[in-house]
């Protein structure tokens, strides 16, 4: 047989300058091990909690060497939101945009779903945010965004 094909999720939602697009980094790993300052993004490592982080490799590379590492590349869908993202954020969660200064990340509930939000991570527009959602919730959340952005036109 041929190798099992990869079913990569692709979608792009855009209205009036506000867009939600799926990002496709090379790999993601959950890491339990070295700590980093709370709510920071350091070298692609997003803080999740004490001694826990989500490491994102934008390009192919080896898994983190330190700590307990689980490959979750297929576990998350990353949505890059640009344009009037504060308005879109305000429709879905209580987190104040001010809490998302550049280089910061925060876990919160968005539209009833547990997500990780990150401001200005490497590789996306400095005026946008990146939202990490578990893959099973992505289709529902994209439907939610399709409905929400229509108010931002």
């Amino acid at each position: 047989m041929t190798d099992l094909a990869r079913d990569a999720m692709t979608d792009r939602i855009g209205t009036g300058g506000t867009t939600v697009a799926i990002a496709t980094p090379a790999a993601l790993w959950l890491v339990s091990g070295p700590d980093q300052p709370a709510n920071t993004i350091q070298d692609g490592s997003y803080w999740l909690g004490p001694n826990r982080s989500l490491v994102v490799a934008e390009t192919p590379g080896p898994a983190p060497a330190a700590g307990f590492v689980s490959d979750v590349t297929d576990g998350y869908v990353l949505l890059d939101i640009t344009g009037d993202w504060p308005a879109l954020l305000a429709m879905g969660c209580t987190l104040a945009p001010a809490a998302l200064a550049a280089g910061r990340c925060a876990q919160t509930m968005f539209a009833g779903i547990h997500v990780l939000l990150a401001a200005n991570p490497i590789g996306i527009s400095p005026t946008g945010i990146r939202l990490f959602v578990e893959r099973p919730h992505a289709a529902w959340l994209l439907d939610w965004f399709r409905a929400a952005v229509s108010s931002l036109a």
Partner: protein
Amino acid sequence: MKRLPTGGRIDRAAPRAFTWDGKALGGFKGDTLASALLANGIRIIGRSFKYHRPRGLYGAWSEEPNAIVDLAWKGEHDPNARSTLVDLQAGMAASGLNAWPSVAHDVYGLIDRFHRFIPAGFYYKTFKSPRWETFEGRIRQMAGLGTLRRSDDRRRYETRHAETDVLVVGAGPAGLAAARAAHAAGLRVILADDRAAWGGSLLWREGVIDDRAAADWVADTIAGLDGATLLPRTTVFGAYDHNAFGLLERRPSAADGWATERVWQVRARHVVLATGAIERPLVFPGNDRPGVMSAAAVLQYLREYGVLAGNRVVLVTNNDSAYETAHALIAAGARITIADARPELGAIARRAADHGIQVRANTVPVNTGGRHGLRWVDVAPRDNLAARERIPADVVAISGGWSPAVHLHSQAGGKLRWDAAEAAFLPEAARPGQHLAGAITGGTSLAEALEAGHHAGTVVASTFGRASAVLPPRAEPAAAPSPIAPLWFVPVPDQRQWIDFQNDVTLKDVALAARENYASVEHLKRYTTLGMANDQGKTSNVNGLAALAAFTGREIPEVGTTTFRPPFVPVSLGALAGMRHGRLYAPIRHLPSHADHLGNGAEMREYGGWLRPACYLRVGETVPQAIQREAASARQAAGLLDGSSLGKIEVQGADAAAFLNLLYYNELATLKPGRLRYCLLLRETGVVYDDGVVARLAPDRFLLSPSSSHTAGVLAMLRAWHQTEYPAMQVAFHDITAAWATYAISGPNARAILGRLATSIDISDAALPHMAIADGSIGGVPGRIARVSFTGERSYELSVPASHGAALWRHLLDLGARDGITLFGIEALSVLRAEKGFILIGTDTDGMTLPVDLGVTAPLRNKKVDFVGKRSLLTPDATRPDRRQFVGLLPADPRFVPAVGSHAIETADGKRRSIGWITTSCRSPALGRSIALGMIEAGRARIGETVELFHLGQTSRATITAPCHLDPAGERLHD
């Protein structure tokens, strides 16, 4: 009543056609539905809730108790539209409520003739026997408000969250001054006002601010609030802990597809409450007749909408505020008579008299008349009510004083104090982070309101270490008003005086409640319904409690107030739901092969937050038929199940085995790498919380498979025990459920099908026996195969990264085609596991089920180390021999499937008693008959006995068996 040729802030170049009870009428852009009805001479807009008395407009805004209508426009419908809050739109179709055939000619108005027989509490006392429900339907038909249509609500609603330095509630002079000062200090400001236009009372009261007309000052101020969030048509309906607020924003002109209502959830560091005050009615005989209106509302209709409410107006007041209405009406051409309840005329009254207005001191109204509206009013000296004088009138404009809008202050926990000079409840003190400005603190002049608002804004700024960059706005100081003379009711016997217009509560009702010892104002409210419904007593509360005070011989402060609760105005369920309706009602998880399932005809249902195939329907097949076919195929050939939702938690660390051994009921320290063990996880109470297979991937690495709906809970439990009890143990946990797709291939042909799979994993029985697991590649991608079964058949679970799941699903279907592979869903799986007597957590177990009840006793006997829940398993209750135990049941009639929840009944001494119930039942295709599982008292000792089953009045019989109905030796696992 008529529309004046000039005046108001309506756009006369933009007419708006609408209908009232089917009659074509016209209004203008800028009208409310209420102002347009008034301009068209519509006097009767509603019928009262109980007596069906004709009712007209009393107020002009959210305080309005009467003018609730049925409203349809653009295919949308509001069964209880509050006409004073509705921006008139072209094409609106409005009609009256609670009347037949119309509010103008209501047959049910006859009820009013029997009012003596239906006082407060009549329902409670009369409709008791045989049951209230016997009467409820008819009473509800004759009373109440609008009726929902059965069509969907097509309006769009949204939710907004915001965080701000200061929320200013109310954009009257005080609110605007506060917002202006805070904004000038560089603070983030949200300004919310429930009207479409800014200015609050400045919209209808005259004034000069900073040497220019108030309207110009308002416009300049709003223009200067650059960057602030300005929310017109937005009512702050609730104040919650820590300065959290709920706001309802109405957007009637929103473009198609946009939300017409939004609920804002605002968290404010500070809030300035500049909510103003609400004019109280006067309580006197006939005060509910259409044409009796709030004096302030008469002024608003005149100045905002250019509508003259009446030509012959009698203005009745006990305070100075109504005199501005008198002067404005005269300027508009009306004839005015003023009845002032105060014994002596004050300065303002004397000035009115000097202008030629008839002003009668010490005079109160004692009756009104007119069949379909007001024709006359009788007035009399307050100290000689028999000396009546009849005055022709088409409007009686009344002012009983002002009740500060303290609702938000009180909702936030603020206390009130009675101020005798104001004859009103005022805030005792502001709550932390709360600032009060303007009429909420009592009667204030324009200059005082501006000063208080500016002060509030600067105080807020100072808490941020900032100073406001603007000078306070100025207005001419006003002369002190003459004191109000409270007039809570007119002591005229045998005539009804309305306190609560919306709920038809009269002075007599309050007197009756007091006689029946409903002395608490909260009891009075429930007994009479005073202050209930959608106006929440905005106009009636103070008059009601003043009457209760009088009838119980107490002072008003002794009576107190009812509790102020959100919402301040009605908020539709749609607005509260926001986007959470239809397919966005609740977040749902999709499987990696979701599209394939749909393509395969799956009937998708929600199971534990996942959208999963219940079954796969073939053409002409019913759901029960599909379930039976799928279950039979899995037994006879092979079935393919999407098990991707099954939890996957990786546990790693030097202490992983020891830690899991402390958590799980079963022994895990002895589990060898590459092997699986079925385990129970207990709460501290010993109750079974979850079950699942634990795999040991390496000496220091495990993979847990919690139930689909328990994954988050199990992860939380692991973390909680690690962080609170065993922090020193070297162990960590990762939920990787979402990263993997898992498919179970089950049945006698499973091995043959898998033999054709390109995999590096040796799936021979020697290398991969039952309850073993191995890693390798599957179809060129990393994967894992576990030999584990929830069907009782030889089964393999294949896992690959989620993005390759759909491809593997299709590939397995192709591989299995020649061996009759059949897709099966959750319902068939439930049949298969029921045949085997396997439990389903939450279905066969509940919050009382212990492992011993399930017959799983070996770990308790043999496990050497402590574990969560162990102590609870040793208590006398846990070891009772008569505990309910998990058993199988075979119905006496093999064609009859007893309902889940059917009770097993035991009869002793002529009394029937439940000894347990059925937890699972189905028709077994393998056995060709009905089977069941259940929890029965001392069930294992009763095996072989017959029990009576009872469900919804029907009885049947069943024989108790061991739980496993099929292949008890487990031979099929190895076939």
